[in-house]
């Protein structure tokens, strides 16, 4: 985590008056997974499209491995792979034909190309389907091919635009594991997502992007810790009863605030440096039994809300709506609302 492989300076893309990407600068380190997290319309795809030379920036510049897209475009293109939002594959061709076709455009020698194609198809579990037309695949199968399509050219850097979009929990997990595996092999991966959990689980560092601007950039851990520093950590107890004695004692502790939730539940938030056993002592002192407890860490969503002062929502429609949470992600909204 020392050498930066992508360096972006003041990159801007305007569509008419709209600054889809607004003067962003950041570095990506070699070998890391860099996650772009942001709501719909935040400018994630546009950023990726500029970095893969599909769209010309309005202003600003970037280099990839020291290569300038204006001068060494072909070398630069060879270094990167793209898993795009819209699937890049031909419906009338089979998976294998698709992969071989794109490999050829990158001048991969035929024998290496075939070997690699077959290996990837087996790895992603699509070997049986290799000669079937893409048109006959399910969404999940297509997305898997879309991912390995970017890999037939064996790029050092892989851009992935919402690689788990539209997948069921099982396929999502498979693709995520595949991404982690690639990263272990030394690939630098830049991915975008609007799923908090995905950004959190996969990324070494996360850039939170909103209205075309990067509003925070750090490891998920640091992002959450800094919010915890500011807001405190939450813990929720279900107790046998809620006597005034207990509430008093708890409230007297420094940097602690208590909220009653009804049904014998209380939510406590405590600042950094608080010893958690003091909380338990306070409860026990009043002879109250603890029936259940769980802590709720701040999530990246809380970080987003803290930074923007609004819900993580679809900017394009400005409707208050919940993100379609994939799989185990269902819980995070509930937890976050509890700690506030």
């Amino acid at each position, binding site marked *: 985590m020392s050498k930066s492989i992508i360096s972006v300076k003041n990159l801007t893309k305007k569509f008419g008056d709209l600054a889809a990407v607004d003067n962003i600068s950041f570095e990506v380190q070699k070998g890391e997974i860099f996650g772009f997290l942001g709501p719909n319309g935040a400018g994630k795809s546009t950023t990726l499209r500029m970095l893969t030379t*599909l*769209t010309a920036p309005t202003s600003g510049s970037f280099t990839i491995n020291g290569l300038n897209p204006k001068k060494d475009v072909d070398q630069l293109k060879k270094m990167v792979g793209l898993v795009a939002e819209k699937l890049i*594959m031909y419906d*009338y*061709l089979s998976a294998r034909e698709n992969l071989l*076709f794109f490999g050829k455009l990158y001048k991969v020698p035929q024998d290496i190309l075939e070997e690699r194609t077959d290996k990837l198809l087996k790895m992603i579990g699509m070997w049986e389907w290799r000669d079937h037309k893409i048109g006959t695949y399910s969404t999940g199968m297509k997305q898997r091919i879309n991912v390995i*399509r970017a890999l037939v050219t064996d790029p050092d850097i892989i851009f992935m635009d919402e690689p788990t979009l539209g997948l069921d929990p099982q396929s999502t997990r498979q693709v995520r594991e595949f991404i982690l595996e690639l990263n272990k092999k030394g690939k630098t991966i830049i991915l975008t997502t609007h799923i908090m959990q995905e950004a959190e689980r996969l990324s070494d560092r996360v850039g939170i992007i909103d209205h075309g601007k990067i509003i925070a950039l750090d490891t998920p851990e640091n992002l959450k810790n800094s919010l915890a520093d500011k807001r405190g950590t939450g813990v929720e107890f279900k107790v046998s009863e809620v006597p005034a004695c207990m509430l008093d004692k708890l409230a007297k502790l420094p940097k602690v605030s208590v909220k009653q939730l009804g049904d014998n539940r209380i939510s406590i938030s405590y600042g950094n440096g608080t010893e958690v056993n003091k909380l338990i002592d306070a409860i026990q002192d009043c002879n109250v039994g603890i029936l259940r407890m769980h802590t709720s860490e701040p999530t990246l969503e809380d970080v987003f809300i803290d930074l923007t002062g609004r819900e993580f929502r679809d900017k394009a429609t400005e409707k208050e709506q919940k993100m379609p949470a994939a799989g185990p992600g269902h819980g995070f909204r509930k937890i976050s609302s509890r700690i506030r």
Partner: protein
Amino acid sequence: MMQVIKNAIYIGYKDMLEFTRSKIRLVMTIIMPFFMMIMTGSIYPSESGVKNIPIGLVVEEPSPSSDLIVNSINTLNDEKSFFEIKKFDSEAEIESQVKEGKIDGGLIISKEFNEDLMSGKQGEVIIFQDDTNPQISSVLTGVFNQIVDQVSFSVAVKNVSEISQASGQENSANPLSIVKPYITKTKSLLGGETNYFQFVAPGTMMMVVLMGIMTGLPRAISFERESGTLDGLLAAPISTMSIIIGKTLAQIIRGIIQATVILLLSIFLFGVTINGSILLVFFLLFIGVYSITGLGIALTSLAPDQEAATMLISTIMFPMMFLSGIFFPVEQMPPFAQAISKILPLTYSIDSLRKVITLGAGIGDLTSDIIILLVFGTVMLFVAVPLFKKMMTK
């Protein structure tokens, strides 16, 4: 440069592969030129196509002279059955029959005809034509005129020889040379009857190829752009030219296949003879395609999506097809249309193709056509490629 071509071939091959996977498209590739040929070939009824046209005949007052004309018609008709002759009593009746669409025209030998002849004037035979059907009318008028001419000519010859005999001149001049001192004899580069298919086949071939390119190219490019696969090509380390050439190549191959279908149909089904070199025919198809590709790419690049591109191109294609002399000779058009046709590349490609197929012209006879096509194509490509590049990195 080699790499550009190589990548273009990969892309072209990929497009062809996609194309062959769709059975409907394959079948249409063969059927479309077949329909085209039949349709364009039947715009003009050739004389041999004229059969049993219902006509009306009015003889107001039979006389030896009118009999002569009627007999000639009958004789000709027995031989070739051009008409289905219906007899009527007056011109008014013919008029109403034509109006009702029961007959396509008529011939009227009036009372005045006989009276005029008796009084030493010329006898007038009236041809009645249906204005709503100019093509049948022109064939009818032609045939009637010919018959009346023929009859009046033989009557004249007979009269002249009678007069010369009466005047007692032996060894006088041939009566034919007195009645009709000048005659024409039609000679053309080709012997025999001209066949309308011979005229339309080259144009139809060129049209099918060009229509294929002009509709196929925007489809191929816009479709990839909309489905997202174009990003895969653009992200690859290949030249934009490879994409353009590759896409065009696939369209040309498809067009050439269709042109071959037309060529075979023309020869074996419609009796067209190819008088020049087949190789030259294909070369000209290629040049014709080259001349128009730039225009197709430019229009595609200007249009925001596939539908707009198709609309834009068909708006331009149709006038272009009519003005370039596929169906009607350019010389028969009004002056402004002729002027437009002079700046259309299609005019030159069709003209040159026709010269080869119909007249057996060699490449030496076509230099000016070929140069114009190459120049037009190159200029258009210079306009189109930057537009295309700009469209792609929008």
